[in-house]
């Protein structure tokens, strides 16, 4: 199971058994979960008991698995249980403890494998004529552009108003609804509720550093959560999830009929178009094309591209192996990146001061101010360091290996950390300032009370003021005191 499905599994595991039963009604969903979410051992187990007529005894399972692999077995079982794929049958008088597949899952998976039924769970291909241009490269380009728009919106939001760009050459970024989704998911933040200026958050930076597939899921889960929270919108999140699994099982480059979809699923299509998962020809709303982003949702093969590969994607044609590892960090805080991807440059701009740009080379330097800016945006020093390490140029790898020294200059790494620490030396305590007491006596008493109940944070006897982090008790105390000596 790859890292990027972690989020999805977390999401799924939090769902109720009821939801799973509904989800597993669709063969595509069952199949997708089987393919995507299970470790190898769990898959083997499922396949082994899929066609068993009776529950499977745990004692038999112990015979199957080597004692040394007990940990893996327990892990597999716990995942299977969490995803409501198996149920345990407790020991009774006449039977030992056993396990069995849940009914819906078993039926759906059998259907998926056998290919029977009329559930249309794997989509209905459209019979309508398709234009010649709608080939796979076109779809890839389309999806990439859509997705890049979203990423650009996330990075470009730094210090620029409204996400709009200087040049009119490219598009104006993702749709408003997607923007709202990103803001709602706190990947980017408005500086103030009314301000049009937005900036990236720590979550947003983490998002950027993920693989594309994980990014897609992050966004989709945000979408699901939003739908869940907003129940009146008429979107059923279980149905949505199930539809996503359906999309994942479609074939890239084929067109599918929208007629075969239910009303609610047809309503989802516009959003999916915004994300770049689906393409619908402008003149023909009767058919849709899943893009690579959608068809690879549940496959472990890297989808459109990973982020690092993505940096090269924009510089199509010049991309080669070297570009993937593009960044050179020097001991004099200079950074050179072999890239011409606006996206990667935008990422670099988050934490360094860029100096010059040539085709395929960008020079910049890390400064206290630039790191501070990044830290203020919520990007951590560790994130920056790991970003630099993962994208280190092959020359850096070579020299590091030859001299047996760390990949990144340790001095720079320390300094980045120190710069971050520098910003963390102040701690804020929200609370209340008490001042302008009627008398010194009153001040003394109230202060002593605050001290006694342990809420006093700071006091200045000379100025007659103090600061406490909680107010209720003090308020009562003062009220009572006033009553006692009016």
């Amino acid at each position, binding site marked *: 199971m790859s890292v990027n499905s972690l989020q999805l599994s977390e999401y799924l595991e939090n769902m109720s058994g009821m939801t799973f039963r509904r989800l597993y009604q669709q063969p595509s969903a069952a199949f997708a979960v089987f393919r995507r979410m299970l470790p190898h051992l769990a898959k083997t187990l499922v396949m082994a008991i899929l066609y068993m007529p009776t529950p499977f005894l745990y004692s038999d399972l112990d015979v199957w698995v080597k004692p040394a692999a007990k940990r893996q077995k327990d892990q597999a079982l716990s995942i299977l249980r969490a995803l409501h794929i198996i149920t345990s049958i407790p020991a009774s008088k006449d039977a030992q403890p056993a396990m069995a597949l849940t009914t819906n899952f078993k039926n759906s998976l059998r259907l998926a494998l056998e290919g029977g039924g009329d559930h249309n769970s794997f989509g209905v291909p459209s019979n309508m004529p398709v234009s010649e241009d709608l080939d796979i490269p076109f779809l890839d380009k389309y999806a990439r552009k859509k997705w890049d728009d979203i990423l650009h919106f996330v990075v470009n939001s730094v210090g620029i108003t409204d996400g709009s760009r200087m040049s009119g050459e490219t598009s104006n970024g993702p749709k408003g609804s997607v923007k709202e989704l990103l803001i709602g998911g706190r990947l980017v933040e408005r500086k103030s509720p009314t301000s049009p200026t937005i900036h990236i958050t720590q979550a947003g930076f983490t998002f950027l550093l993920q693989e594309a597939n994980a990014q897609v899921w992050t966004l989709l889960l945000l979408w699901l959560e939003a739908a869940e929270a907003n129940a009146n919108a008429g979107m059923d999140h279980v149905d949505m999830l199930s539809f996503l699994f359906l999309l994942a099982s479609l074939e890239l480059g084929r067109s599918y009929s929208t007629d075969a979809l239910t009303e609610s699923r047809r309503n989802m299509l516009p959003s999916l178009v915004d994300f770049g998962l689906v393409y619908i020809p402008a003149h023909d709303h009767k058919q849709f094309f899943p893009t690579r982003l959608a068809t690879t949702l549940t496959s472990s093969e890297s989808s459109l591209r990973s982020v690092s590969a993505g940096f090269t994607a924009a510089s199509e044609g010049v991309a080669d192996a070297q570009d993937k590892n593009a960044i050179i960090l020097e001991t*004099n805080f*200079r950074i*050179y990146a072999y890239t011409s991807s606006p996206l990667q440059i935008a990422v670099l701009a988050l934490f360094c001061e860029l100096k010059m*740009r040539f*085709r395929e080379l960008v020079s910049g330097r890390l400064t206290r101010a630039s790191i501070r800016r990044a830290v203020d945006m919520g990007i951590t020093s560790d994130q920056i360091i790991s970003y630099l390490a993962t994208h280190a140029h092959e020359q850096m790898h070579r*020299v590091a290996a030859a001299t047996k020294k760390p990949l990144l200059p340790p001095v720079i790494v320390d300094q980045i950390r120190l710069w971050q620490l520098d910003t963390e030396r102040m701690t804020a305590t929200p609370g209340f300032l008490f001042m302008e007491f009627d008398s010194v006596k009153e001040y003394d008493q109230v202060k002593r009370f605050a001290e006694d109940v342990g809420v006093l944070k700071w006091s200045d006897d000379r100025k007659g003021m103090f600061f406490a982090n909680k107010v209720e008790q003090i308020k009562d105390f003062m009220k009572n005191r006033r009553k006692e000596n009016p």
Partner: protein
Amino acid sequence: MPPKRKAASAVQGAVKSGRASAASTPGPATPRDLDSDDDDFGSPGQVDLPAEEDIQSAVDRFSLAHYQDQTVRGPVDAASRHFGNGRRDFSYLNLKPDHKDRPIWIDPQRGRIILENFSALAETAKDFLITVAEPLSRPTFLHEYSLTTHSLYAAISVGLQASDIIATLDRFSKTELPSSIRAFIANSTSAYGKVKLVIKNTKYYVESSDPEVLQKLLKDPVIGPCRVQGTDITTTTSNMQSVVIPGTSNAAGVQQVKPSDKSQEDVPPEQAQPENAMQALREDDDDDNSEAVHAFEIPDSAVETVQKRCLTIQFPILEEYDFRNDDRNANLEIDLKPNTQIRSYQEKSLSKMFGNGRAKSGIIVLPCGAGKTLVGITAACTIKKGCIVLCTSTMSAHQWRQEFLKWSNIHPKDITVFTAEKKDKFEGNTGIIVTTYPMVTQSGKRAYDSQKMMDFLTSREWGLMLLDEVHVVPANIFRKVSSHIKSHSKLGLTATLLREDDKIGDLNFLIGPKLYEANWMELSEQGHIAKVQCAEVWCPMTTEFYDEYLRTNDRGLKANLYIMNPRKIQACQFLINYHEQRGDKIIVFSDNVYALKEVALALGKAYICGATGNNERIRILENFMYNPNIKTVFLSKIGDTSLDLPEATCLIQISSHYGSRRQEAQRLGRILRAKRRNDEGFNAFFYSLVSKDTTEMYYSTKRQAFLVDQGYSFKVITQLAGMEQMEGLVFNSAQLRRELLQKVIVDTEAKRGMDDEDATDDLFYAKGRKRGVRRTAGTLGELSGGQDMAYIEQRKSANKSLKKNNKQSDFFKKHYRDIARNKANAQQ
């Protein structure tokens, strides 16, 4: 700030002529501008000397800002705005198809060059770039250079042609060479190197290989009349042999091998193709040697006029000395001792100086400890004429003489020292004199013998003037030196050609271009200078000190507080202790003399500052060198330069001169020549102690900029493990710290208004120790001599009048009479 440069200059239209010339004529781009973090060339310094104005205007004309790149820019993308709103986005420059094999990028606006050090061509490219550009940063992977007028001047002066420079740059460049760079090089160099001032048979000749240029000069209303009457333009074909620099392998083989052969060996095999521009360029170089040159004579008196005029009409004069054809000045019997071998980089630097068989004036930049002295000596041995060496202090003057005797076979009588204490002339008709800058620049009345010595110096013609630590000499001082003392060629030596002020901006024009600058990291890799671990120790301020620091507005007190921060003193003590136990010899530097004394006393160590007498200095230094019990010495900034202590292996800096990059580099230089540097795994240590959260931190970063660009890295130490547990740690109780604080405050207050010891402690600005006198209030204890307060007599003449009205009290009259009587009685 330079004006916002636009690609299409047509937009500017009429405005351009007015504004561009006013705003886009920044000052000299080098060397003070070498910190690469700024985007502009810096604003021109206001100079009031007329001569400097000329230079300024000459410099301005050659700034790259004049040349705008005309390349049409393609559409910009979203990322452009990160580069100064697209101004520094040069992605419109098209890459060559085989760009992967070419090592450099060139910034069309500022002439910055980025070099891939890992490229196969890097060595060749570096060799070329060091000649035509200034190195900015040279860490591991990517080096940066900057094309400046000065660097081009230097390139031309070693014999390169503009067309060669352009062709070679183009060959190395990954992109098409930007038109602005082409124009810049072509224009700058069209003016440089065309005219040379040659002294032949002690007559000055203005020489050029281009007759048209010479005609132009002769038609000039100022220069024309300067021509010596009755002389013609002489045309000679000079076929020059190259000089063999003593001490090199060439000299050993006594073969007249041309130096170019040597350098060609560096060219990797794949470079040895016919279209190899490097090679072609060297061949051209050789061709030059047999080119016809034209010259006319000018009288000695007109030299300066002509030089100035040439500068204004854009033909800066190169000075060259054809020393082998100089028969009038006697030859000096000097040669390197047979066992003296000079290192490859020293040879390289000297070959730049003697490139075409003549001695060129210029500056050679080598790190401290890399053998600058030997370079100077070798130069003197090559020229073999009278030589004057100028250095910064009496101490280093003696060191120079010793070095001369050590490396060369010069007769001890032929080399003398001229200082305040010693004023000897050499006996023969030529020789070497070592003196100090203050000795020859002092104005006003001189002692009789000094004056005689000065007359001797100024009346002679010197073959070579060696200028040690040339960065400490502000241009106006140097102007004085060169106007007093006539020399055919000048060689400046320094480790750090940078100053925070702009006082050396003109040295390039006054002495000559920078001929060579060595790569620190490379020399350290090769073991010529010690490997150094640099660390910056962050010492938090103690609460009391920080309180006071925040409260006061007095800069002096603030400085004293962060320098005297008890935690810093503790860290210093801890480090001294640690390194003494390791067997290191430690130098502690403090700029602040007050702190120097206090800390040295607190830790019980010897210190040397400006006020320390010469004998005491020598005693302390000898003890430091030879006495195994004395492992630590405290030095004020007098120890920054020219102090040769190969024993020292560890350096701790507790206070420094604001953001001076030069000082940091010079101080590091004190340990680069560590004796033990070639031991396996040996490391020298350089600690810089800074008080956290004070302005010191800010300066510290600035100071390190130069070294960091050379590839050094400063490790930040926030916590010295085990410091708290150390026994006998000073100031480790709050009581003691408070006392120290009080002392610092009181002493700072007391020192205010007195002579600013720190400012006068520099080698060059010392104007004798002034005894400050002031009126002051004081406690009764102080007034009666409890402190070091002393009275002086304001009106000495009053004493005489006192004697006149000799009115004695009756009591004393009677008393004295009694005494006299008693004596008389006793005698009877």
